[in-house]
């Protein structure tokens, strides 16, 4: 991943629980669940964190956006465009890293 800082998000106050400060295994299972939700026919047991998003899982730009929106939904947050645009994601682990680094900003 090209960027190492925190990724800011806006909490959705209309939803009851805002997930933050996930540990590694929680982040991993959340990412695996999101992947199986957006990739038809993909089973969680077939996902490996070293797999490549494009070359192994065939994720294109549309499905990549779907994946991030899916993660937002599972975290009850809205990610900030500016932080995301410059990050390059290669492996599944990059997504797990993203989820771990999400910190909630108090204000938009």
């Amino acid at each position, binding site marked *: 991943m090209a960027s190492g800082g925190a990724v800011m998000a806006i909490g959705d106050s209309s939803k009851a629980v805002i997930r933050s400060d996930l540990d590694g295994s929680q982040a991993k299972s959340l990412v695996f669940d999101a992947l199986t939700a*957006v*990739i*038809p*026919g993909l089973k969680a047991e077939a996902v490996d964190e070293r797999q*490549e*998003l*494009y*070359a*192994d*899982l*065939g*994720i*294109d*730009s*549309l*499905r*990549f*956006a*779907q994946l*991030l*929106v899916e993660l*937002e939904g599972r975290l009850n947050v809205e*990610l900030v*465009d*500016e932080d*995301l*645009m*410059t*990050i*390059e*994601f*290669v492996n599944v682990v990059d997504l797990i890293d993203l989820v771990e680094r999400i910190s909630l900003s108090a204000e938009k």
Partner: protein
Amino acid sequence: MAGTARDPLLPTHWFNILHDRPQYVATALSRSQLAGLEDMAGHGLQLQQPLSLARQSLNTANRFIPIPDEVLDLYAQYRPTPLRRAVRLEERLGVNAHIYYKYEGANLVGSHKLNTALAQTYYYARAGVKRMATGTGAGQWGTALAYACQIMGLECTVFWVRSTLRQKPIRGDLMRLFGADVHESPSDLTEVGRRAFKEDPTGIGTLAVATGEGLAFAAEHSETRFAIGSGENSVLLHQTVIGQEAVAQMDQLGEFPDCVIACMGAGSNFGGVALPVLGAAKDRGRSVRLVAVESAACPKLTRGRYRYDLSDALGTTPITKVYSLGSTYVPPPVYAGGLRHHSAGPLCSAMYADGSLEAMAIDQQTSFRAGMLFCETEGILPAPESAHAVAGMIDVASRHPRQEAPLAVLVNISGNGLLDLAAYHRFAAGEIEPVAVDEASLSRSLGALEEFNQRIAQPAETT
């Protein structure tokens, strides 16, 4: 900074049809079903557009999506756009119809494209992008994006289909006036362009190649992103200010459209006017007929096939299910450059597939004749694309039986034709020959489309 008072008729939200019809979200093919991915090891994914725009394309939860204040202030400079009844045209045609037209051509750039250009550049600028790249057919989109980029402080690079650029070079001057770099496509700046030249030495260009060049240029330059002028759900969403205004304006006149007609490139002006009317019809428990008018030189709906296809010549964009003539089809260089895209966007394609819209193909001469008549009777010279909508509208209105209640028709005049005077002049002088489909190119292209679909073992349809 609100410089212009907002008219109460200016919508504060975009209308999201995906709320009413979530089945239209998208049908994309997984890249894992394509061979050759093993060569792509190490290929990273980066967001190509701000997630704010992607969320709009995927949103099925909200029927109305708020328009950001900054964008509303810019809309307020030219919206609401006029809605008028074409009384003199009705009289001239002697039809049993009330013909209303929405006029999107009165803003500085000359077309509806400004509605999405302002919205998209707002989100891209906020996301930290410094330069936009794009491909344009008629040039209306390139002009709108150039202007919006100037307003938002972004640089802009436009790849413009050569055949159209040569028809109206003065529009290029307008893009450059707004600070854009304008390149003829195919160009020698990108591999896609160089390959297209090899395959078609005449180099008249297609929107698929120009789009591919814009994508390639964006991928090769830092802080640069590609923006699209039509087809995507978010783009159609931004255009829904047109139809929402039209419904409110017709309400004031005690009318509601029985039929909505617009030309079809990839679907943004059509969707912009038709989708909100469809929503309003649902609310009022009535039905509305929607008619998309395409160019007979590029009949993607009436002669295309509903298949998975690439939307550009670079081939990196999502492979969606669309009505298509195949991405390698080279339509003859008709003057309606905005109608030369080989496929309709996924949303309008899904609507055509389920019977929600009708399609009609109009030849170039009929459209110019309709455009001239519209100019003579209504004092507005429509863009050649919009003239197709006028021709379709005349056809529909003329067929309405005299003994029935008058048909209320709403047609969208998506742009003005002031920079197309040379084309109108040539038509008036009898210099424009009828242009038909290039059957040889079409047959090759459809063959390639079928082959591509056969290679896909089991298409996975997802939402």
